C-alpha cells in the first residue's frame, strides 16, 4: 500500500502544480481546438454529401494525441528545475512509484482536456454523443491511459536529452498506432450510434491488452531509465 500512497502523493503534487499554473491545460486545450478548426478546412463538415461520422473518430483521436503530447512533454521535464528529479529518485519511493504517480497525474490532465475538447468537437462537427455516451467514455479512458503510459515512459526516457521536445513525438506516435487505431475504429462506430458488439469488441480487447502490457513493462523497467 505504500506504493499506492506514495504514487498518489506524487500525482497530487503534479496536479497541484499544474492547476496553479494551468500552463499545460490551456495550451493543450487551445491546441485541440485549433486542430479542429484546421481540419474543418481539409474535410469541410458543412459539406452535406460527406458523412461526418466517416472521419470524426479519426479526427478526434488525432487531435487528442497531438494535444496530449504537449502536456506529456512537461511531465518529467518539470522535475529538472531545481534538481527535483534527483531528490525523488534518492527518496524511498521506488522508480515505479514515480512513474505511476506521474502517469496518474497526466491521465487526469489529459482526460480533463479531452472532455472539454469533446464537447467543443461535438458542437463544431455536429456529432451525436448521447446515444453511446457510456461506451464513448470507456474508450476515452482506455485510450487515454494508453497515451499516458507511453507518453510518460518516453518523457522519462527523453528528460535529459538535448532535443527533448522533438524526440518525444517522434518516439511516441509510432508506438501508439495500435491503440489509436482501436480508438479511432471504436469511436467511429460509436459516433454513428452503433454500440459495441461482437464485430468491434476485438478493438476493446486490443486497448485493454495494450494498457495492461505496457503499464506492466513500464513500471517494471522504468528504473533502468531513472537510475543512472
Amino acid at each position: 500500500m505504500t506504493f499506492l500512497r506514495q504514487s498518489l502523493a506524487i500525482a497530487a503534487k503534479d496536479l497541484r502544480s499544474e492547476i496553479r499554473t494551468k500552463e499545460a491545460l490551456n495550451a493543450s486545450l487551445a491546441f485541440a481546438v485549433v486542430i479542429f478548426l484546421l481540419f474543418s478546412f481539409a474535410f469541410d463538415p458543412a459539406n452535406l454529401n460527406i458523412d461526418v461520422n466517416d472521419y470524426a473518430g479519426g479526427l478526434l483521436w488525432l487531435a487528442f494525441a497531438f494535444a496530449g503530447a504537449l502536456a506529456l512533454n512537461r511531465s518529467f521535464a518539470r522535475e529538472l528545475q531545481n534538481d527535483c528529479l534527483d531528490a525523488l529518485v534518492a527518496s524511498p519511493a521506488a522508480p515505479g512509484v514515480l512513474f505511476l504517480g506521474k502517469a496518474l497525474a497526466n491521465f487526469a490532465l489529459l482526460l480533463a482536456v479531452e472532455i472539454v475538447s469533446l464537447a467543443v468537437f461535438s458542437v463544431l462537427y455536429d456529432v451525436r454523443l448521447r446515444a453511446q455516451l457510456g461506451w464513448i467514455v470507456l474508450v476515452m479512458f482506455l485510450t487515454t491511459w494508453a497515451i499516458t503510459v507511453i507518453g510518460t515512459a518516453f518523457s522519462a526516457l527523453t528528460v535529459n536529452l538535448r532535443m527533448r521536445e522533438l524526440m518525444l513525438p517522434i518516439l511516441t506516435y509510432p508506438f501508439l498506432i495500435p491503440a489509436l487505431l482501436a480508438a479511432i475504429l471504436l469511436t467511429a462506430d460509436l459516433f454513428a450510434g452503433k454500440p459495441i458488439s461482437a464485430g468491434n469488441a476485438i478493438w476493446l480487447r486490443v486497448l485493454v491488452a495494450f494498457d495492461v502490457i505496457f503499464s506492466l513493462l513500464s513500471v517494471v523497467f522504468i528504473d533502468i531509465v531513472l537510475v543512472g
Partner: protein
Amino acid sequence: MESPLWSATPSRCALDVEGVWKYYGDFPALREINLQVATGSTVALLGRNGAGKTTLLRILAGLSKPTQGKVSVKGADARQESTRRRIGVLGHGIALYDELSAIENLLLFARLYGVPQPVKRSDEMLERTGLDRVRDGLVREFSRGMRQRLAVARVFLHDPDLLLLDEPFTALDDRAIAVLHSMLAETHRRGGTVVMSTHQLREALELATHVVLIQRGQIAFAGERRQEMLDDVGWLYRTYGDN
C-alpha cells in the same frame, strides 16, 4: 597510493564501499574504491573537479549504480527502500517545487519518506529554519536564502542518520550555513554520520573528523583529520596529491 582505513567492524560501519568501479562507457570515473566509514564520523570528501567526488556521492545516494562493486549502508544495500529512508541528500539544486508552498513541499517529502506525523514534523522544521511565517507561501516567491533554508529543512526532515552533502557550503548564504551547522552538530551528537564533498577546505575541515582525498577516480588518502590539514589547507594536496 596508501589508503589507511580506520578500523571499524562491519556492524559499526555506517557506510561500506567495496571494490566500487564506475564506468562511463570505457572511461573509469571511479576505480577500485574501498572505503569504510564508521558510524558517527564526519567525512570531508576532497578532490579536484572531475576527480570523482560527485560520482561517488551519487552512487552512495542511490542515484546511480556502480558498474562493479557494492555499497552497503549499515549492512544493507544502498538502493533498498529501507536504507534510503535513513539517508538525507543535499545536491547542487535545492530540490524544491516552485509552484508549491513551503509546507506542501515538506509534506510531499515527509510522505515519501514515511515520516510519522508529517504535518507536525514539517511545521517543526519550518520553525527551526525560521520559515514558519512563510509556511503557505509559494517557493517561487522566496528569496534565495529562504529557498536554501527550506532545502536544508527538507534534508533533515526525516531524521536521517546518514547525510550526503555535495558542496553544501557553496550555494548557502550565512543564515542558511548557520542553520546547516546547527543541524549537522545535532546529527553528530546523536551519532549520525556525515559525508560531504567540498571545495571550501577550511569550513569542512573544521567540522570533519575524517578526510578522504579522491584523485583521478581513486582514493589517494583516507584517514583521520590531522592538525597539519587545519594549519595549512594545501598540505593534504601536496603530500598525497600529485601536482
